[in-house]
């Protein structure tokens, strides 16, 4: 598998076929005397901002902590062993509602969108 071509930026779908984001980053473990091994995929704005450069990455961490608190200071990670299928979509054995990935969407729903009549 070509990681950049077949994995990075692909659509991630959870156990219940919910679109939860794109593969925004990859986490690779470098091991002594052994080939590197991929351990997790990363999702979220911090990872994306880091791809633009170190400084945007720091700004995004600051912003996200301001908005969502300390527990959002690190990018969302999904362990590689949870990945079930790598095709046009990346299927993972995770329930997105048990993660913090959709916290901001939940906030938006509860505080803004849900309060508008007809939502």
């Amino acid at each position, binding site marked *: 598998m070509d990681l*950049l071509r077949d994995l*990075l*930026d*692909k*659509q*991630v779908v959870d156990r219940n076929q*919910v*679109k*939860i*984001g*794109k593969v*925004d980053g990859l986490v690779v473990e470098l091991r002594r005397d052994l080939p590197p091994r991929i351990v997790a995929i990363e*999702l979220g704005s911090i990872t*994306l901002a880091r*791809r*633009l450069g170190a400084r945007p990455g720091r700004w995004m961490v600051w912003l996200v902590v301001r908005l969502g608190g300390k527990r959002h200071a690190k990018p969302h990670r999904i362990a590689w062993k949870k990945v079930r299928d790598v095709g*046009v979509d990346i299927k993972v054995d995770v329930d997105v509602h048990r993660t913090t990935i959709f916290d*901001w*969407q*939940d906030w*938006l*729903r509860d505080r*803004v*969108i*849900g309060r*508008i009549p*007809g*939502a």
Partner: protein
Amino acid sequence: MKKLLEISLGIVTSVGGFLEVGSMTTAAQAGATFGFTLIWAILLGTICIIFLVEMAGRFAAVSGHTIADGIRERFGFNTFLWSLLATLLVNFMVMSAEIGGVAIAAELATGIGFQWWALPVSFLAWLFLWKGTFGLIEKGVAILGLVTLCFVVAAVMLKPEWRQVAAGAIPSLPEHDAASYWFIAVSILGASISPYLFMFYSSGAVEDQWDKTYLGTNRAIAGLGMSFGGTISVGVLIVAALVLGAHGISQVDDYHQLPLLLLPTFGFWGFVLFVASLAIACFGAALEIGLQQAYLVAQGFGWTWGEDRKPREDPGFCSVYTVSLLLAAMPIALGLDPLKLTIFSMAVTAASLPLTVVPFLFLLNDERYVGEHRNGVISNGAVIFIIALGFVLAMVTIPLQTFGGS
């Protein structure tokens, strides 16, 4: 039978996307100033958009992914981000122009200044997106949009010299005002080959759950639908050439000149038909662009999206169109001239084409997405031609804007 119904509905729908404030205005300007001589630009634009729409539909039907998905997945986030920002900006200007078009129609109908209508129009559009389903928006706009056929009827009833009309289909050099001629040509191409149109079409194919069995339907809708839209644009151009010229108007620089278009043919009802056509075509386009903004962001970042869901199921998606519609109403509410904005945004659209068309060359030849339904020689040739055209347009737009813009 079901397929046939689907195809006819699809054709009508694509007219809704094709005809909007940009194509109406640029066609009217071309007709008033240059007679039939710019018909070729509409034809060229229509042929290009047929190819792009067919490919966008094929890509979505085979892969289940939209063009925006494809750009992000195939070219990575950094490339995607720039094309996202450029497209959002262009769409913002076009959407503002569409809201302006509806506001002008409301002003013509009521006499109350257009800037007062910007926010109500934008709110009404938001309400449609908030409560409506994809089918309602797609089909409702499409069927009401048939009123624009009155331009074709008027064009035929005015009995133009068909030989001259045919001569206009062949590109020719201008006899006067060369800079203005080419600027209008560029604007017509920008109005016909709109990125939002083919991006929206690919999202629509996913919303309507197209699969490989829709490839034939897709081809028919792309070909016939866009030709149908182009025909109406040509109708507007012919009517403008015959009517505005006869009234001594050789340059359209004010929307208040335009209701004149249909008066000689339909009398008072011509006024009503014009106002209705402008309002419906622009309102439909504003809805589609509003959705397209949300599709673009949601698909690019991999969120859940879909117009058929309730807003609480995809809050991110809904927030994008809510904010977009509100922002797009602002320039008009502040009194920016909708006509100037329209012309300007069509030229900018033309200049932005390379950004959205280059990916077609890669995506439609990528077997992982489209498998055996890859582009053939003709489609690839068409994409390369459109990319080249896009680069030329991008280069000449700014100088022409300076010398030929009204």
